[in-house]
């Protein structure tokens, strides 16, 4: 009885942890030919070092202003939010890049990527919908 109770408790904790620890994923426009990104490619696109997809089309980076997914993106890039912004301002004011599109929430981000060929975003997996393609980063 006691063991059953403990097992139930562990299962409950595991389930609740899973529900709060949302997985984030990279999404691109649904028609993109991209099937996966290396870590270097992922950082290259998000830090403005790569401005074109392999087919030559323009990369449009879409980011959130703040929030959990934004924090996780910064962590994955190894940058603080201010370092990320400063890096892009360096590119923009020397003519080496165009500022990422900034949206207010994850629904807007997914909607933007769904309607914009060439765009790339980073969101909570549960927010993805038709029109975007989930791309694994290896």
């Amino acid at each position, binding site marked *: 009885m006691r063991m059953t109770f403990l097992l139930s408790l562990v299962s409950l904790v595991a389930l609740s942890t899973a529900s709060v620890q949302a997985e984030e994923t990279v999404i691109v426009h649904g028609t993109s030919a991209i099937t996966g990104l290396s870590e*270097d490619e992922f950082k290259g696109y998000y830090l403005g*070092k*790569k*401005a*074109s997809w*392999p*087919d*030559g*089309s*323009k990369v449009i980076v879409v980011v959130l202003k703040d929030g959990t997914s934004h924090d996780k993106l910064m962590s994955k890039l*190894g940058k*603080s*939010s*201010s*370092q990320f*912004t*400063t890096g892009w*301002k*360096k590119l*923009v*004011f*020397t*003519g*080496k*890049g*165009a*500022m990422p599109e900034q949206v207010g929430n994850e629904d807007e981000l997914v909607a933007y990527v769904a309607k914009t060929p060439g765009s790339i975003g980073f969101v909570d997996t549960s927010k993805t919908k038709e029109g975007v393609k989930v791309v694994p980063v290896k």
Partner: protein
Amino acid sequence: MRMRSLLIPTLAMVVGLDVAQAADDLQIHGFVSQGFLLTKNNAIFTPDSEDSGTFEFNELALNVVATPIDRLRVGVQIAAQDLGNSFNNQPTIDWAYGNYSFGEIANGLDLAVSAGRFKMGHGLYNDFRDLDMTRPSVFLPMSVYNPRWRDLILAINGIEVNLTAAAGAFGSFEFNAYMGDTSFSASEGALHDLFVDTGMDPSSLNVEAIRGGQVTWATPVDGLRLKYSLLNCSQFVAQGTYAGAAAVPGFVPGTDYSLTIPNYWDNIASVEYVWNNLMVAAEYNYVYYQTTVDGTLNIGGPQVPVSRDSSNRTDAAYISAAYRMHPKWEALGGWQWSQGESEGAQNTKKKWYAFNAAIRFDVTEHWLIKAEYQWTHGDGLLRASEQADGTREEIWSLFALKTTFDF
């Protein structure tokens, strides 16, 4: 918005696109900075900086960038700056170039080519020296990034090739090489001021070619990058008239001179390490050039034409550490040093060093306020003509406040 409505059709006409496509790709950005500079014991950039302080310390810029066709990015930035007696907010084309990306030309190897007027990468920060919003301090370390030389090595008209190479376990490498030239004004600007300050009024200032490049290694250690930069200016020639006190002893005031620098070599070795909210940067700068001055000499007899050679070198370095202790607050501390030597017609040696501390407050993502204090030993950064009494003190200090808006 009105500017956008004018720029879009213009850009579209230039690149032969329809207006809607150009509008989709167009971005307009700009910034405005205003500073206040106060010095003690000496003046710098303007006599007004000492005691009362000066607001002749600002930058502004407006740019437009578009990607009219796949792989091609074009843009232009108009900028103006005021720094005491220099620049005086004259609008200039800061950069205007096209960049074509060939993408991955071989496994892990990306190639891009730029043509037009572009910022020269040199050291960690030369191409960002006007971008106040990209650093915690008001001034970059003046030993390596002397603000007086901003318009001399900031941008050139020419071509640049950029190659990036993924190196697996060794990180990645970036190679840049550029060549071109630029024009210098003989009637105003930093170079004109330098010649005037040494008693040599210039009538023409020309350089045959500027070339250089950088190798940047993003090491396998997260946040650590190393860089080496080389810049060469060939066949720099200044011509003009000696005025007043001649720069070369014995040369006759009122007579013509010609100064030639066959090759000017400027090297910077850089290291930058970013670990979480801490950033440490250090750079060593070595400059070498020979000069030949042809002029007229008068040694108690008839005036005779002579030619005098000298060799010059400058060694400079700095180290700085910046820490962002809060999303809105960042602090920086640093040390810098410079030593210049000249051998030939005159043997001179000048050395100075300084300590600085700065704090930055980000009011919003697009508005910041900064303050900086610098204590300096030595007068290598100073000019006699900027001192109210014509003399320079050995120990002096500088306080600067600056605010910047960008969009």
